[in-house]
């Protein structure tokens, strides 16, 4: 069963996007795997305290992206392949880096400066 224990609601972004992001982060980090069961819509609705329509919307979009499949009886399961996992990783990564680049560019920092800073911080982070 896909866990939502670490799900923290943040202000700003619509909840259905936050739910989708939570699943995708799990996929990218490898904490969820192919064939794992999703909580039922009602349970997730109660767990997060959000309207069933919102949960339904998130599930629908995940289905459209092919990340989950719903069987008869309303149960939903993750449907992952290596390509899909890679695509999700890329998408998430791109999103983060794009935000970063935007912010750094906005401060008028040059590409070289940014790259060297990135390398320096990367090493510090590893240590």
């Amino acid at each position, binding site marked *: 069963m896909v866990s939502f224990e670490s799900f923290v*609601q943040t202000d700003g972004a*619509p*909840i*259905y996007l936050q739910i989708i992001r939570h699943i995708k982060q799990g996929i990218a980090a490898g904490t969820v795997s192919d064939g794992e069961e999703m909580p039922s819509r*009602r*349970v997730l*609705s*109660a*767990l*997060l*305290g*959000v*309207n*069933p*329509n*919102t949960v339904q*919307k998130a599930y629908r979009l995940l289905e459209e992206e092919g990340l989950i499949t719903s069987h008869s009886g309303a149960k939903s399961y993750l449907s992952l392949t290596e390509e899909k996992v890679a695509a999700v990783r890329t998408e998430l990564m791109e999103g983060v880096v794009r935000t970063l680049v935007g912010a750094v560019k906005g401060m008028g920092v040059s590409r070289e400066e940014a790259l060297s800073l990135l390398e320096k911080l990367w090493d510090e982070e590893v240590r």
Partner: protein
Amino acid sequence: MIEIKNLTKYYYSATGGKRALGDVSLQLPRGEIVGLFGENGAGKTTLLKCILGLLNYKGSVTLDGQPVNRKNIHLLSFATCEHSFFPTMTAKEHANFYEMHFPAFRRKRFEALMDFFELPAGRAVGQLSTGQKNQFEVILALCQGADYILMDEPFAGNDVFNREDFYKVLLGILEENETVILSTHLLEEVENFIGRAVLLHKGCIVGDCTMEQLEEQGKDLMTFVKETYQYRADRVIRALGELGGKDR
């Protein structure tokens, strides 16, 4: 579906009449969670009481196409901050009383909710704390076996954790055909909980929008409410300006 058509309500007093609701029309299909918002005196309580037939009004209220009467009144339940339980009776006695009058009473749900909120079953409910009384009032409304559960500021006096618990429990237990109409001023708190927002202002509906529509417009509930009222405020200012112009 509850269908309200051209509902108008006046309160008469020695000093004259006051319009509480003016030509309200509204459709409330089954299975929705609707938030009813508005300033104090906007007419939220009056609207709920008119639906329940507790007040006289002009216009019509129908329940699945039928006027509200003794035959279908059991489809409506009501939790009010004024409380409608019997203060000298215990929770257990209330359950028996409800079961006697409402055959669809959900005893299992009742016991589960009593357990969850750790309410004493054998003590007169009038002796409970305000928060517990509110919880009990809402539990009764949820367990009557109604399709439309009307709530009027049910959590006045409960702390925030308590209320959050309630929203979650509600979402967990509500069935597809159960409808909740929740009148409250706790906008931000119920924002994610409700599926639709209806805004009342001075007895008229000034806004009616599903949360999905709001999301598509990238607005949160507070923005929607402020915009709606701002719009009214603008009109007032414009009207005042025009009036002033004529004078000069």
